[in-house]
């Protein structure tokens, strides 16, 4: 064992990076240079990132991109870009995915998933096809189920507790590139 894995990881990493850089550059050829040796500070805006086929159909695509971008506005540097796909890849661990999932569903970034966040999530999931009463019912029930400390919003602990028992979180929170 030992160090062998390192080299392998490195090779893999390079391969990934080359592939990913290709994808990254594809989004904005006029912005992204081919040469990345001196780490140029380039950010691709959200509107371009979400056109990727991997994200195009995702109802939370804007939130995903915003969450992973360093400035929180969805302007992604290449590092953010790699970051995003590494967190969403198949082998990344549950804890990491949980953290990012929480961030994604926390729309107003107050470190709590509150009712407004839930409503937004639900409306994106169902394309707004539920009636307002149904939405309220679902949100109330969801909070009632998962809220352990009775503050009427989901803290990260609540969220983690809930997600850790979900059967298909790992298989669904996953993007292949």
């Amino acid at each position, binding site marked *: 064992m030992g160090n062998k894995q390192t080299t392998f990881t490195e090779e893999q990493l390079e391969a990934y990076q080359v592939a990913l850089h290709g994808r990254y550059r594809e989004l904005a050829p006029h912005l992204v240079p081919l040469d990345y040796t001196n780490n140029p500070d380039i950010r691709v805006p959200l509107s371009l990132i979400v056109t990727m086929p991997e994200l195009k159909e995702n109802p939370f695509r804007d939130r995903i991109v915003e969450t992973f971008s360093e400035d929180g506005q969805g302007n992604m540097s290449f590092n953010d870009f*790699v970051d995003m796909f590494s*967190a969403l890849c198949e082998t990344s661990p549950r804890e990491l995915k949980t953290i990012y999932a929480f961030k994604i569903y926390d729309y107003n970034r107050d470190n709590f998933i509150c009712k407004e966040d839930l409503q937004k999530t639900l409306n994106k999931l169902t394309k707004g096809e539920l009636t307002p009463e149904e939405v309220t019912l*679902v949100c109330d029930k969801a909070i009632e*189920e998962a809220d352990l400390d*009775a503050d*009427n919003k989901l803290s990260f602990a609540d969220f983690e507790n809930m997600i850790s028992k979900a059967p298909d979180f790992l298989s669904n929170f996953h993007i292949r590139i």
Partner: protein
Amino acid sequence: MPPKRRNHDIIEVENVGMDVDAEPDSDSEEEARRRSRNRRSKSQRKAKQVSEDEDEDEEEEEDEPPRRRGRRKTTKTDEDETPQRRGRGKRTKPQDSDEDEEGDKRRAARKGSKASKKKAAKETSDEESEEEKVGRKKAGRAVSKKEKEEQNKEQKGNVKGKDGENKDKKKKKKMSSSSSSSSSSDSDEESLSEGEIAALKEQVEEKKKLIATLRNKPWRMNKRLSLLKEAQDFVEKFEGALGKGKGRRLYAFKVMMTKKLIKFNRDFENFKTACIPWERKIKEVESHFGSSVASYFLFLRWMYGLNLVLFGFMFGLVVLPEVLMGLPYGSIPRKTVPRDEEDTAMDFSVLFDFGGYCKYSILFYGYYNNDRTIGVLQYRLPLSYLLTSVGVFGYSLLVVIRTMARNANEGGDGGDEGEFIFSWKMFTSWDYLIGNPETADNKYASITTSFKESIVDEQENQKDENIHLRRFLRVFANFLILCSLGGSGYLIYFVVKRSQEFAKMDPKTLTWFENNEVEFVMSLLGLVCPPLFETIAELEDYHPRIALKWQLGRIFALFLGNLYTFLFALFDEVTAKLETEKSIKNATEWALHQYYANYSSFYNTTDVPPPKVAPADVIRGPCWETGVGREFVKLIVSDVQVTYLTILVGDFARAFIVRFLNYCWCWDLEAGFPSYGEFDISGNVLGLVFNQGMIWMGAFYAPGLVGMNVLRLLTSMYYQSWAVMACNVPHERVFKASRSNNFYMGLLLLVLFLSLLPVVYSMMTLAPSFDCGPFSGQEKMYDVVIETIDQDLPAFIGNIFIYASNPGLIMPAILLMILAIYYLNTVSKAYQQANTDLKKKMQMAREDEKNRRNNKDSTNQVMKDLEDLMPDKSLAPPPAEEEKPPEVVIDKSVKPTKTKPGTAEKGVNVQKEVSLAAPNPRRPVTRAPGPRGGPPGNTRSPQPQPGKGRGQGAAPRR
């Protein structure tokens, strides 16, 4: 070392651990800290070596007194910077022994620099070089094995420290520290011992672990990259040093292979899923119409699989041997169209009615010959025919029951179980892999549908109802339905009776209506009753899933009437045919007898050749089995026609009209009266079930029926899934179907049992036709089996059968089975009980946990309540007013916990506990402003004292 010092040494170890923190001349504070932590962790087992080491240190200490002071200064600052660490080690530090402390420091310093003792000049400071001198001196002095080990420990310490540092997330500084440590390790190469190699290995291991887990940390990529780089540099260096890169390629290959394997497995899973027939179609239907409609299609698919197997049996064991090895068409009378039918035998109308060539084909019972064995293989076709027919039933029973049992494990009536129905749906239902717009649309639809299903369930749970009214309405509805069922049953009975009377009369004197009365009434009932039942069921206001079950059961009862009339008519036909057959049999026998008599008297010989008659001209009986088979086939075909036409007209044409006439109509067709059709789950499921019953019954008389049914199911799968997607709208209340489909299976089992009865009856009691079918010439059909046992099997097997059929053996066997069933039933009940108990416990535990987290609030609430109950409360109105506002606030905060009915008890318990302990401490606080409450209290004091005061230990104490 003298053993008496041992004790002291152990304490010293702790000091060492602490003091290394103060290491001034190592490259960074972190390194020292790391070392210290590692030290502490290993201190116990290192104790002995350390003691030795310390002695040396003490010696050194004398060598360099001046440096001590300066270092002490730095020590102070460093220690200030790391207060929390110091706190841990400090408590055992004996401050009085300054020498010891200094010695430790010295030693630690030496160790830190020991790494660079060979060629450290360019990397280390002046101080370090000084240290180096010391180190070398010491190295020269004591190069014992123990010393070496000590060094190794140090190395390990570095590694451990790094790890700890990682955890502390002090990453930025690691760059420098690791590079320095790597350089120092480099310098160590020359004096590598086994222990050192082990240490290095460990170190590398740590780094590797970091690299492996790096991606698991939620850091920004920049940070990760820098960390990764330095870790990799480090490992790279040691790799060279340790020469461990040999197996690298192999390892890389291995890893690659595992990845390939994973990918292959994934692809294989995909392939397997793609192999499940109609999975996509059903999923699509499910996503738009909900699991209830999908359950019908799942049932249909299951039925298709079952029929495929049955078809395999029938075709492989009966039809194919007869085709391959039996006599060809036209060779014997039963395989030939009779002369008088020959003209019309190829007419379409006749063929469509399964007359003509169809009737004398492989499809029907009559075609099969009664030769005991056929072909070169000596295949016993009659025996195989009987056993296969029985085997079809046996297999079906087995499969249905097995499926039911397996589904029972999945359990539940379809309602969601688990704690987080909605949260899971909300957060984990979207599949991030979806990249195809159509799939995404389907997913949206299915998520919406599943939410709606759960909402329906939830609303059902929340519905607070007038239980008495509801109960009354349900009883009333059941009464109504029983009445209508009884009425229709009587109607059927009455009509069948009448039709029997009509049958005796001359058909020409009867009107058309009288001729077709039974069919007319039956279809009328089938048309009117289901909607009627549905309307009545509205009264009951069940959850739609339960309502569907009731509806299914009721219509099933109605359809049983249908079955009854059909069988009744069939039985009449059979008895009539049996009689004509008897007369024809007698006639032919008489004719044959005459022929023989004439022939022998004419030619005066007893050697009479069989009469030369063309097979088509032979007089033959009606062959009631073929007749019955034809009835079944016709029924199935007409059923298919009706079903498909209904879909075409009732759904497609309706949807077409509604969709396109809506532009020029006076009211809104889509929202108003005709609207689009809903998928009729109960009707379709029952249609399928009864159709299968027909197949089971008919398969014996018409072996080709199973093949036709396979075709039918196949087409209806495509046709119906198209129709439902194209012309129907989802139900108003989309509900979650039971996962197990066990109710459908139960109905199927019932039908299977019912259809088993007439077939077995005919096998056992009715005489087979004398001139057609595999059993012709036998007294009873099952005689084939007895014949085989008698003639072809060894005698002892026959004996076994005789014994086995002895009532003395059968009775105990049945008794044993009943006992076994009873026992198993009891056991399963016990398990069920345990299961529900466990579930309850889990629920309780969860609520408990929830409550514990809110404990403060709830206890506060309880105590407030308690105070309200206190007698003194009334004594002092002003403080009570003060208390009011906080009470309200707490009320609010507590409400959302929503203690369910189950927790009410718990609440009470808590109250009790609190009442024992709490009052005392609280009292003085709330009541402290005493004098104001005094005067009013005085006036009322007599009242509480005797009344409630007795329970309150606190009151007198005040």
